[in-house]
């Protein structure tokens, strides 16, 4: 019995160490340093793997693709497996293209699109920390920062319970994004083979 408790305690402790995110000691200093470090990143090019976890169905659906980001507010998410789907955000303009058609949306004329557009850009370029649309709590472990965002606006609260942004301490880049939905499902997006500050032409983000 005692041995069982000990093993359980050890397991739980190990799990705690593996998770190991604790609130940052100095949130004000953290915000300043984080903003400075985000400022150093002008562009990101990477592969991504997206895992949609449908917890009630015990299913995980994986998608893959290419990701490009360039300041200011230019994002290209190109899904290649298991379907072709392209989303380009260029300022307020959004272009969506699949196998059948191309659609263009102006985020400024559509409030929902504007909000979702801003979440994506803010999460990916690290500017979420300065926004009033969320309650933000920063955590850290030895290798990463983790920003936990709880939406405040009604529109965002309809979709998300919580968003977690994981940032590598060594270069200040976003390594993964975890979106916890109101539905109970979770989507995790991991960015792999990152190239920071590579030269990415504006034509990659052409949204017209």
């Amino acid at each position, binding site marked *: 019995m005692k041995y069982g408790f000990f093993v359980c305690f050890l397991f739980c402790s190990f799990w705690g160490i593996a998770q190991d995110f604790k609130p940052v000691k100095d949130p004000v200093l953290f915000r300043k340093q984080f903003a400075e470090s985000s400022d150093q990143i002008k562009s990101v090019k990477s592969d991504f793997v997206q895992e949609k976890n449908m917890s009630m169905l015990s299913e995980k*659906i994986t998608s893959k693709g290419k990701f490009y980001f360039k300041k200011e507010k230019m994002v290209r998410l190109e899904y290649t497996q298991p379907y072709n789907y392209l989303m380009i955000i260029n300022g307020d303009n959004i272009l969506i293209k699949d196998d059948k058609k191309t659609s263009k949306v102006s985020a400024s004329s559509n409030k929902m699109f504007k909000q979702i557009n801003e979440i994506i850009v803010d999460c990916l370029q690290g500017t979420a920390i300065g926004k009033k649309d969320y309650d933000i709590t920063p955590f850290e472990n030895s290798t990463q920062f983790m920003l936990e965002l709880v939406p405040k606006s009604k529109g965002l609260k309809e979709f998300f319970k919580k968003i977690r942004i994981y940032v590598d301490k060594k270069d200040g880049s976003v390594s993964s994004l975890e979106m916890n*939905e109101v539905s109970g499902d979770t989507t995790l997006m991991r960015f792999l083979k990152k190239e920071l500050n590579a030269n990415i032409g504006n034509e990659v983000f052409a949204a017209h």
Partner: protein
Amino acid sequence: MQISVMRFLLLISVFLCLNWSCKGPFDGFTKIKRDEADCLADLKPVFSKVLYHADIDVIGKQLTGLLFFKTMPDSSKRVVFYNEMGLTFFDFEWNQDRFIVHYCMDKLNRNSVIKTLRKDFELVLMEGWGSAEPYLYNEKQQWIYPYRNGKEYRYYYADSTCTEISRLVSASKSKKIVEIELEKRINGMPAHILIEHRAVHFVIDLKQLPDNKE
């Protein structure tokens, strides 16, 4: 004289209206008596899990995403629709005679929308059959199996060897409401499903995606 002409015209109008409303969508097709046991029950989709890319057009507004069908360990069926970035739109379940909405995003959470989607997927999954009508229709190389559930009629088009269903129609007594075209099955479900509503412009186009293996 004038009154008689008017009465005659009125009578003709009533007759024409009655005749029109009595016309069914399969009038003119060969109708034959149905065997008590037919092959259709064997064609009900049997699958573990299938993923589709979905393209939805509702009165000119487009929505795309992924539609996931799964048979659960207790044999219930789940259908989940989410966008390409992973945001869930709805999650429905069919469990024996029960239909359960596990989740539906606010903007779609209207009785009319859920009812429409429910019926469309029930047609595809062959759930909620209703009772078999005592006849079949024959049109060219196809046999059409009618079922009735209250005021709703469902028609399943099977080939002459009854090995594939190529088309599904939901109708009232006089007109078609939804028509669904199906392509050959892969993994137990059609490779392509095209759902078209007749009363309003509402089209759901589903293309099956390859197995999602790690």
